[in-house]
C-alpha cells in the first residue's frame, strides 16, 4: 500500500471582475464597472480543485493565499467553501500599484512567513491582466522549481512529482522535485461546487490578515516603488463593427462568400 504523507499545499488566487459583466459604455467608450461582480479568477478555480484533490488523496492541508484589497476576503471565503482549510489575505495600502514583479515578491514573502510547504499551485494566468507572470515570478523569488501549464499530475510523492505540461503541439512529461510550483490549465480537472459543509465553514472561518510589516517585506520592493513597469496610457480599442449579413439560397450564399474570401484563403 502507498504510504500516506502529509501534504502542505498553498494555492494562490486572485479576485477579478467577472468578465461576463464587463461592458463598454457606447458613449464614453470606457469600461462600465458599476454593478460588476468580483469573482475568483476562473483559472484559479482549477488550482483550488487540484489542491483539494491532492489533500483528499494524500492527507494534509490547503492554504488559500491572496493579495488584494480588503474585499478580496470574499474570494478566500469562497475558496474555503470549495475545500481549502485556511486562508490568508495580504493587504496593505503599500501594495497599491504593484506590477507582476512586486506582486510575486509580496506573495513569496507571505509564503516564506507561512513556513514549510510541498506544493504551490496557481492558475495559469488571471483573466483581468492575462500576464501568466506571477506564478513563475513567485517560484523565481523562492528559488524553487516550477512547471507551468500543468494539465495532469500523474504521480506525486513526498519527494517528487511527475506531471504533464501542456505545449503548443501536445504535452511534455516532466519530473520535478518538491517543493515546487505548478501553474495549471483548465484541462486538469472539473471544479466542484461549494459543499454545504464548506459554506458553513466559510461563514465561520477566520481569515488571517497580514500587512507589509507582518510579512517582513522590504518596503522598497513593494507596490509602485517595487514595480519596474508603469502604465502610461489606457485606451479603448475601437469596437469591432458588425459587417454584412448575406441572404438568400444556401448555395448562392456559399458561392458569394467563397468569392469574397478568395484572397484570404489562397
Amino acid at each position, binding site marked *: 500500500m502507498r504510504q500516506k504523507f502529509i501534504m502542505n499545499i498553498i494555492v494562490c488566487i486572485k479576485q477579478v471582475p467577472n*468578465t*461576463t459583466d464587463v461592458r463598454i459604455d457606447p458613449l464614453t467608450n470606457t469600461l462600465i*464597472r458599476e454593478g460588476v461582480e468580483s469573482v475568483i479568477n476562473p483559472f484559479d478555480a482549477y488550482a483550488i480543485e487540484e489542491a483539494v484533490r491532492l489533500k483528499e488523496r494524500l492527507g494534509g492541508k490547503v492554504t488559500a493565499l491572496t493579495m488584494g484589497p480588503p474585499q478580496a476576503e470574499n474570494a478566500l471565503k469562497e475558496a474555503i467553501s470549495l475545500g481549502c482549510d485556511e486562508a490568508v489575505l495580504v493587504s496593505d495600502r503599500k501594495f497599491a500599484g504593484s506590477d507582476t514583479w512586486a506582486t510575486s515578491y509580496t506573495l513569496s514573502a507571505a509564503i516564506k512567513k507561512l513556513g514549510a510547504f510541498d506544493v504551490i499551485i496557481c492558475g495559469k494566468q488571471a483573466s483581468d491582466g492575462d500576464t501568466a507572470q506571477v506564478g513563475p515570478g513567485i517560484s523565481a523569488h523562492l528559488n524553487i522549481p516550477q512547471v507551468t501549464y500543468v494539465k495532469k499530475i500523474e504521480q506525486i510523492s513526498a519527494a517528487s512529482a*511527475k506531471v504533464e505540461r501542456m505545449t503548443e503541439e501536445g504535452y511534455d512529461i516532466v519530473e520535478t522535485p518538491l517543493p515546487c510550483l505548478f501553474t495549471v490549465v483548465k484541462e486538469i480537472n472539473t471544479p466542484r461546487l461549494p459543499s454545504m459543509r464548506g459554506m458553513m465553514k466559510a461563514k465561520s472561518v477566520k481569515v488571517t490578515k497580514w500587512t507589509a510589516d507582518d510579512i517582513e517585506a522590504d518596503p522598497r520592493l513593494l507596490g509602485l*516603488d517595487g514595480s519596474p513597469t508603469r502604465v502610461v496610457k489606457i*485606451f479603448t480599442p475601437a469596437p469591432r463593427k458588425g459587417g454584412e449579413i*448575406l441572404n438568400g439560397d444556401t448555395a448562392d450564399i456559399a458561392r458569394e462568400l467563397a468569392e469574397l474570401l478568395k484572397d484570404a484563403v489562397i
Partner: protein
Amino acid sequence: MADSITIFLDKCTGCTLCVKACPFGAIHMANKKAVIDMAVCTLCGACVEACKFRAIELKKTAGGKKDLSKYKDVWVFCEQKQGVIQSISYELLGEGKKLAGELGVKLCAVILGSGIESKIGELSARGADKIYFVDHPALKSYQDDPYTEVLVKLAEEYFPEIILCGATTIGRSLVSRVAVRINAGLTADCTALDIDKKERLLLQTRPAFGGNIMATIITPNHRPQMATVRHKVMKEAGTFSSNKAEVVRKSYPEAVLSSRTRLLDVVKEIEETVNLAEADIIVSGGRGLGGPENFSVIKELAKVLNAAVGASRAAVDSDWIPYSHQVGQTGKTVCPRLYIACGISGQIQHLIGMQSSDIIVAINKDPDAPIFKIATYGIVGDVLQVVPALTKEFKRILNK
C-alpha cells in the same frame, strides 16, 4: 517618495467622469466628491485625463535616475524546438530590427540549444547583427532552470537594453523568471511596440481585460526592458542572405546548466494537424453543431482550407472535442487572417479569444447571436447545410 494622486475637493464638481474613466473601478463618489481607493488604484492617470476641471493631480517622482547608459542593443530570444526555429522568433527579429534602428543599436539574436550550428546562418540571414550562441546537450529542449540561468548570465554580462521573447508557453515561463532574477520590468503579450526616442523607452502596448481595453506600459528606471509579444502580430523579418552576423559563442559550467526538473518525454498530439496559435485560418465549431459527430463537417472545411480546427467552450465542455482546440478566455487566444465560427453564439469569453482576427465569418441559425455583432460576414442558417456548401465552393476555387 513614491508617486501620488490627489483630488482637489474644491475643484471636484462631482460629475463622475473619472468614475467612468477608471479602468480599475478604483473611484467612487462620497458626498458628491470623487474618492480614490488606493488599494485598487494603479496610478495609471486615466482619471487625470478624463477630468475636465483639473481636479485630479498625479505626481510622478523622477526618483534617483539611475545611469542606464551601459545598457545597449535589442535582444530577441529565439525559440527553437527540436532544432527548428519557431516563426515567432522571425517576427521578433523583424520588429527588433525596427526598434534597434530607432535606437541606433544592434539587433542581437540569442539562441540556446544542442547541435544548432546551422542556425547561425539562418539567424544571420534574418538580419541579426550579432548572435549569442550557447550550444550544449543540456539545452537541447527547453527546461526552466538552465534556460533561466543562461539568459540571466548573458544579460548580466552584456547589458541589453531590450529583450523580446514570444508570448508562448516557453517564453512566458522563461522570461517571467528571468525578469525577477535580474530585477527587470516585464510586460506580457504585447501587440504593439514603439520607441520613445528622447527617453530611450520601449512603449509596450497590450490588451487587458480580455481585449476590452488597451494599455501602454513603460519601464522607466530598470534595464533591460523586457516584453513577451503575441504571435502573428508583427511582420516576419525578411531574408538578407549576404548579412554576416558577429557570433558570440558562450559556454557555461555544469552548475549553470543543471536542471532540477527532468524532461521525460515530449508528446505530440496527432489530432492537432495545425497549431491553433500559428494558424492563418481557423474553422471553429460550437454547440450549434448539435453533436460530436458533426465536427466532421468542420474538419472537412478545415482540411480544404489547410486550417486549424477550433472550438467554443460549450463544445469542449460537452466532450465533443479536446480542450487543446478551445478558443477563448479559458482556452487559446488566436488572431488568424480568417476565422470561421460555425454554430458559435459568441459569448464574451469566446469573443475575447478571437476578436482580433482579420476577417470573421459567422454561421449561426439565431439571427440575434452576439457573434454577428463582430462578424465581417454573417450567414443566418443551419451550419450543417451552409458549411458543406462552403466546403464545396472552396474546393472549386482552390481546385481541390
